[in-house]
């Protein structure tokens, strides 16, 4: 300020200007003493109610008072939760009915994706490095061993959870009208889960995985028509070098190409396909009227036979 | 700049195409040439009409004092009997011996049949007989050792293969030949360092060696323009042109100076 004045003074062209500047400065100083405290008080008030702030309301669209409306909005306005309806059958909350296996499967898929991505940072799907990478993961990477263990066990758990989920769905007859198609989607997801697990088996490139995959893919030799050892395979010109197993492994033996294929299917191919089917599956759950039950029991006598 | 670039870009495939084409073409010509080459390779002689043949003869003279033939000390090997003189210049009465005369140019691509009979090179008295030998390429040279001592025959050619073989007394003659034309091909014996002679390998049968009288005679030449070469181990070569008509008989004299 002082310098500014001085500069003006040196200029010495307009005395009026100098006065104006002087009063202006005075006013500014005065307002600082009055306005700022008022504003500060105001700010404190605002901060007392953080849920009213623009920031908060922009993120959370609705209030959190415990009202039925808010409860419904909590679900409806949340991208993650809106898979659920706002309200459900009172007994559907019971664990004894759903066993929670569908949700657990999804959760495990989520865990597997997370740990899988982390594992990918440390893994090269090549014959030279694969096994070494796993050793490295075990011995060198912080929490690497835990990561690998979690991935492996979550995968096993997921297979179990999927099978139990299917078991429950069957027992409660939930595949029945109108959910027939969603059951079919579910079967596809089961197959994809098994394939996901199976493709991951080879990746450490150890004896266990190698022989499991060798035995597993040897069956493909015997594919009817398409395998060189299968019925009508040789008649159709199938050899170990052009049959379906060759296509699966990228070679006639389980080797570098098989490792790479397995890796790509495991990390990219099947997860994408499975995600698509999962979206479909969840979408259909909602569209087919939410989960099937627990529904009131129906008596045999109440069934009206469709007219033929 | 831009057009240049374009030319380059376009030019590349064109060039490579050309190269390919050229490659193909070459191959073709090669295969075409082969049958033609075959007869040339063979020793088939171009027939000469015996009715029209001419001949050329003459004397080689020596202008100057002939150096006295210095004696050679052969006491090193008692088996070498008799006398021996240095043979590099044998001249008497103004005539020069041991000059090799042959048709150097003018025969074209003619090829001639190689005589079946061998030419003999004898070693006796630790000396080669003759001192200068003319032979056709491929013609057999029969080397005989008449001395009671072992000689080795060691040609040191320029364009032919070098060899060096020992010949004990009373052994079978060695039969050798020289494949390529070579004038003044030295032959020596390493055990008797004074022994030295020259073989002249020519492609035509038209050659001669002058005797002590300096005379030579070449017969059976077809008519034509020829260059005659006169070669001496010490005095080098002199060329003479001569034109021969059918049944001509010409004389060419040459004089060497020391």
């Amino acid at each position, binding site marked *: 300020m002082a310098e500014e004045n001085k500069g003006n003074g040196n200029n010495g062209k307009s005395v009026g200007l100098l006065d104006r500047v002087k009063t202006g400065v005075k006013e500014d100083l005065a307002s600082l003493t009055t306005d700022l405290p008022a504003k500060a008080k105001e700010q404190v008030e605002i901060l007392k109610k953080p849920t009213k702030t623009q920031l908060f309301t922009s993120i959370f669209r609705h209030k959190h008072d415990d009202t039925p409306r808010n409860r419904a909005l909590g679900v409806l306005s949340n991208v993650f*939760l809106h898979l659920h309806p706002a*309200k459900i059958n009172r007994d559907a909350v019971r664990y004894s009915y759903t066993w929670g296996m569908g949700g657990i499967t999804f959760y495990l898929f989520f865990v597997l994706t997370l740990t899988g991505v982390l594992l990918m940072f440390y893994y090269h799907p090549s014959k030279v490095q694969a096994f070494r990478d796993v050793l490295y993961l075990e011995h060198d990477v912080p929490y690497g061993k835990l990561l690998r263990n979690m991935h492996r066990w979550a995968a096993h758990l997921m297979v179990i959870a999927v099978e139990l989920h299917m078991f429950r769905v069957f027992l409660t007859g939930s595949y029945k009208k109108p*959910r027939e198609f969603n059951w079919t989607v579910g079967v596809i997801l089961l197959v994809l889960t098994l394939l996901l697990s*199976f493709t991951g088996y080879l990746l450490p490139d150890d004896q*266990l995985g190698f022989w499991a995959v060798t035995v597993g893919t040897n069956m493909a030799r015997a594919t009817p028509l398409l395998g060189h050892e299968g019925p009508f395979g040789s*008649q159709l010109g199938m050899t170990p070098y052009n049959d379906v197993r060759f296509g699966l492994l990228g070679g006639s033996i389980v080797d570098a190409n098989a490792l790479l294929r397995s890796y790509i299917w495991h990390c990219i191919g099947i997860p994408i396909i499975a995600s698509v089917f999962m979206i479909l599956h969840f979408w259909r759950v909602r569209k087919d009227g939410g989960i099937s039950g627990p529904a009131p029991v*129906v008596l045999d006598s109440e069934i009206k036979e469709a007219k033929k | 700049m831009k057009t240049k670039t374009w030319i380059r870009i376009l030019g590349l495939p064109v060039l490579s195409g050309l190269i390919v084409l050229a490659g193909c073409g070459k191959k073709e010509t090669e295969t075409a040439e082969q049958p033609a080459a075959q007869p040339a390779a063979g020793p088939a002689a171009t027939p000469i009409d015996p009715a029209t043949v001419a001949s050329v003869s003459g004397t080689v003279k020596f202008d100057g004092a002939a150096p006295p033939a210095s004696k050679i000390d052969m006491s090193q090997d008692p088996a070498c009997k008799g006398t021996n003189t240095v043979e590099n210049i044998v001249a008497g009465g103004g005539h020069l011996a041991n000059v090799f005369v042959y048709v150097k140019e003018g025969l074209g691509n003619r090829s001639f049949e190689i005589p079946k009979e061998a030419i003999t090179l004898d070693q006796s008295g630790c000396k080669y007989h003759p001192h200068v030998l003319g032979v056709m390429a491929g013609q057999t040279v029969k080397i005989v050792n008449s001395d009671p001592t072992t000689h080795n025959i060691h040609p040191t050619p320029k364009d032919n293969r070098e060899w060096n073989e020992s010949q004990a007394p009373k052994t079978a003659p060695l039969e050798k030949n020289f494949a390529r034309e070579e004038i003044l091909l030295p032959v020596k014996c390493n055990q008797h360092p004074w022994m030295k002679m020259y073989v002249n390998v020519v492609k035509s049968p038209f050659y001669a060696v002058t005797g002590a009288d300096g005379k030579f005679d070449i017969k059976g030449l077809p008519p034509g323009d020829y260059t005659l070469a006169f070669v001496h181990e010490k005095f080098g070569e002199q060329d003479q042109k001569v034109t021969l008509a059918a049944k001509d008989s010409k004389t060419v004299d040459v004089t060497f100076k020391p």
Partner: protein
Amino acid sequence: MDWKQLWQILSAPDNIPIVAMIPLLAFYIFLAWRQAHANDVLIEQLAGDPALAKTHHRKAWPFKPGWQKEVHVWPFLLRVEFLAAIIVTIILMVWSITLNAPLEEPANPNLTMNPAKVPWYFLGLQEMLVYFDPWIAGVVMPTLIIIGLMVIPYIDTNPLGCGYYTWKQRKFAIGTFLFGFIILWVSMIFIGTFIRGPGWQWFWPGQTWDHNRLIYEVNRDLPDIFGITSNWAKGVFGAIVVGGYFTLGGLAVNAFFRRHNAKDFKRMSLLQYSIMMTFFLTMVALPIKMGLRLLFHIKYVWITPWFNV
């Protein structure tokens, strides 16, 4: 009793899921059975008392007038889901800390593992290799299983039992499924893991897995037992036997189905019925073939130059 061997198999890290699966399955079957039983009791009560049927809320769980029929997902469902996620996380963490994922020697194509086993969830199929040619066990069967599962909703015409546990209303469907899932799928996995030792030989639990064990076993083909020698005759004979099985089996099932499941039978179209029959008979054929093999040492029933069954 070789306890050490037993423990070795049970405690192998990769076998833990199977070991865990058995009590889990037992627990869930129990859970389902309890609810099914309660529902069945309720159904019987309601069927016998139409008046009550009109007023009853029709669930085994208690219900009091005034209670909400529907509850908010937030928080009532989500809190359960979140709890489940926490518990699964705990299980997973504890499991991962205490047990290491297996890592064996680096892959060596020259050194065959004995026994070489596929991942546990495919062990059922590997077990099938004993009884069937690879093309059936490895290709046809999984395909049939997948297709069979997929068509279930379309061939199960029973409108009862949708959305609640019951046994009495769906005896056939549930029975068949339990047979397929528990007997054919889970128990095959069990056998593949705990029973099949070196050389894929049968070792009873507690028997030492001896790599040197040799077993004398001659498997014959069914036509041989009947003294059929010509290839042509074998093919025809096999076709007759297999065809006969499907025909006679079909007739037998049909007779049973018509009598004891008359309503479903009535509801089903011919296509639905025949599909159901095909899958059912194929499924039943598995244990029959297994029995033939294990008890009578019969390898093939149907022999052709191209394939054997």
